């Protein structure tokens, strides 16, 4: 006979209270124990313990199930482990990179013992070359990614020899080592865990010495393997993976795939512990008189070396002569990111075939620096360029990727993974700025706002609208949507009309005659009675481009309403060049045939703006174009309505 006439409820909750209520309800069906629902009774205490235990086990089972799936896992270790089964190794922290030219002299022979002559012209410095820079009150250390070869350059002012290395790639991080002694005496379960969560996985180098007393193998670098193809039983390879607590583990082959370790081997792991994105943008202020990097020879990495050793460390400059600051430093991949990318990486099989593959691969490898990304096939370009895939990236900082970053994307990330006959090409994002002018009718009989406050409110709203709805690839500007939202700001705004201007910024190559194409990608309408486009004022030669003996003047160009662009003198409005370029009003393509822009300190900017109007009130973006609300040029005119007009 059952203890109780009632039955226990099916499990409908893991909540303590519900579980206890179920038990109490069950016991109410019997008469042997009557005191189950008095808090002080022994039965109640036992029921509390039973319900608590049930609740605890239910919660535990729930957590256990959650941690078994990528979607629901909360612990980083669980997500990493599940991602691993999809063949996805989450990205480690990444140190920022920078390219410098290094010139050294050593009058006091402080580093002479470190310099090795490679041949009659080349020198090599033994050890890990380390450079130091201060940024934001912190010291950051950079190491040379590859062996640096110096060339003899000449003599400094004091007659001491100078050696010189160009384009030395430095990466941020403190170099550290960890040594393990292989001990398989009690089974094959020894683990080589590097106790540093800030490790940069690109920096890991492994050496395996035969034993503590024998140096054999101490100079052989074992290479990192990311797959089992090409590995034989004698391949000196190691594998690297993230394990629990965000730490990393080095592990080795089993004698079939990769060479195994032997009892007594000494494993030396050297790696860099980096600062991630904190070390980005170092070097912007670098100049000949204020160099931001200093060199520390490996013999003196923990102390200052005489400044006499260093002659100069200059950062690589871009086309305009500005130093290219450090870039590419990233935090380690977040759990949210690996939950998103692990299944997609499995889909792409680590290959770039479809357009989404390109985007996924770049977001995975370069996500810390990407604000928006878009890819399209060359057949969709204007004009078509077959055999290419174009990728355009808007970086998180600034508007354009620098040359080094583009090369990194094209060569390091995509080249090894895309289809052989396709060339990945990174192009700059193309920004099209929208300057709207709103006219509002505001009913002052019922409205409480002042004109000024309403203007400010609408301007702030439009700015935020631009940040939320534009500023990325494939985002179009629909004025109807914006107007509808403005009308909802205040019921007393009775009407809202908008007039839209748009402009592009041309960054010219100075002092050189060049043909430019500026594509608005939207049909154009006239700015005034005749012209559709007009430029800002810039500096150029007076009469004919290339005639360098002619005086430089301030000029601008505009069209004649029939597709022809002419150059005018800004001082007396006289025509300088009649057939300066052309404009297609349907496609929005502006072509300058042979324009030469001059760099002049009188003009405050190094850019030329080209203004026009779209034919429709909506502005569309395509390919590399990003629409931006011109934050400085949003105009609002409020007209008051106070009488009812019939």
């Amino acid at each position: 006979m059952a203890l109780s006439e009632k039955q226990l409820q099916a499990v409908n909750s893991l909540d303590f209270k519900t579980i206890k209520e179920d038990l109490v309800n069950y016991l109410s069906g019997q008469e042997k124990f009557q005191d189950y629902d008095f808090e002080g009774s022994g039965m109640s205490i036992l029921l509390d313990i039973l319900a608590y235990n049930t609740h605890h086990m239910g919660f535990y089972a729930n957590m256990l199930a959650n941690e078994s799936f990528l979607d629901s896992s909360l612990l980083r270790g669980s997500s990493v482990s599940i991602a691993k089964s999809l063949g996805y190794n989450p990205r480690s922290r990444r140190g920022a990179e920078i390219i410098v030219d290094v010139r050294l002299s050593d009058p006091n022979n402080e580093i002479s013992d470190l310099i090795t002559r490679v041949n009659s012209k080349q020198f090599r410095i033994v050890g890990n070359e380390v450079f130091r820079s201060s940024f934001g009150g912190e010291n950051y250390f950079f190491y040379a990614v590859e062996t640096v070869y110096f060339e003899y350059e000449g003599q400094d002012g004091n007659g001491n020899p100078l050696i010189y290395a160009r384009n030395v790639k430095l990466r941020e991080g403190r170099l550290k080592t960890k040594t393990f002694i292989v001990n398989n005496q009690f089974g094959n379960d020894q683990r080589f865990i590097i106790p540093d969560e800030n490790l940069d996985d690109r920096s890991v180098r492994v050496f395996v010495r035969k034993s503590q007393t024998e140096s054999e193998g101490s100079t052989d670098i074992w290479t990192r393997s990311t797959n089992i193809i090409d590995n034989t039983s004698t391949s000196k390879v190691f594998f690297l993976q993230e394990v629990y607590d965000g730490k990393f583990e080095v592990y080795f082959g089993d004698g079939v795939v990769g060479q195994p370790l032997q009892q007594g081997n000494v494993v030396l792991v050297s790696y860099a512990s980096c600062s991630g994105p904190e070390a980005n943008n170092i070097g912007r202020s670098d100049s000949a008189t204020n160099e931001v990097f200093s060199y520390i020879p490996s013999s003196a990495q923990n102390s200052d070396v005489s400044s006499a050793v260093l002659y100069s460390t200059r950062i690589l400059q871009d086309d305009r002569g500005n130093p290219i600051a450090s870039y590419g430093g990233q935090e380690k991949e977040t759990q949210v990111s690996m939950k998103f990318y692990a299944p997609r990486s499995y889909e792409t099989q680590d290959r770039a075939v479809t357009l989404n593959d390109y985007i996924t691969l770049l977001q995975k490898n370069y996500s810390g620096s990407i604000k928006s990304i878009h890819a399209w096939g060359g057949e969709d370009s204007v004009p078509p360029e077959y055999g290419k895939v174009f990728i355009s990236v808007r970086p998180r900082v600034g508007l354009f990727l620098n040359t080094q970053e583009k090369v990194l994307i094209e060569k390091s990330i995509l080249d090894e993974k895309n289809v052989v006959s396709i060339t990945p090409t990174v192009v700059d994002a193309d920004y099209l700025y929208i300057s709207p002018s709103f006219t509002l009718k505001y009913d002052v009989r019922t409205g409480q706002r002042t004109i000024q406050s309403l203007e400010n409110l609408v301007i702030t709203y439009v700015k935020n609208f631009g940040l939320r709805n534009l500023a990325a690839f494939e985002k179009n500007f629909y004025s109807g949507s914006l107007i509808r939202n403005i009308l909802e700001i205040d019921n007393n705004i009775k009407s809202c009309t908008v007039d839209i201007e748009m402009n592009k910024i041309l960054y010219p190559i100075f002092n050189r005659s060049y043909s430019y194409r500026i594509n608005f990608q939207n049909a154009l309408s006239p700015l005034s009675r005749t012209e559709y486009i007009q430029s800002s004022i810039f500096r150029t030669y007076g009469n004919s481009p290339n005639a360098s003996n002619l005086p430089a003047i301030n000029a601008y160009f505009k069209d004649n309403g029939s597709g022809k662009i002419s150059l005018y003198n800004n001082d007396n409005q006289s025509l300088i060049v009649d057939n300066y370029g052309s404009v297609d009003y349907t496609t929005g393509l502006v072509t300058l045939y042979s324009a030469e822009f001059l760099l002049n300190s009188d003009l405050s900017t190094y850019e030329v703006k080209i203004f026009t109007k779209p034919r429709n009130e909506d502005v569309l973006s395509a390919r590399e174009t990003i629409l931006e609300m011109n934050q400085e040029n949003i105009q609002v005119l409020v007209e008051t309505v106070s009488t009812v007009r019939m």
Partner: protein
Amino acid sequence: MAEDTYRYSDLDLDFLPNPITRDVPLKYDVEAVKRSIKNLVFTNKYERPFKPEIDSGINRLLFENFNTIRVVTIQSRIEDVIRNYEPRVTEVSVKMTDSVDRHTIIIDIIFRVRNIPQLESLRIELQRVR
């Protein structure tokens, strides 16, 4: 069945087996209520899972300076916890007697079990153990 004649029946948490039947004994009626009151008096805050408010406070208050105010506080806390969590009793009154020389406090709880006419009393002696 014999236990059908009892109004209240509860497990004895001492779990001392009956020497003859080896069965775990039960507490009935007034004895069950007394055992319940005793359990409540000895319960401290956060001791019961998800019911932190069940608390006579006696454990904590014994470590305070022992004076008249403390005696009144202990009495009222015990009365409160019984009134709040033991609906089977009425007319609760608590009397405390201190025996400083013996390091002992004697708590006498006088109460009436509902539907039983006579008054019942429960004596709890708290002694210093070391």
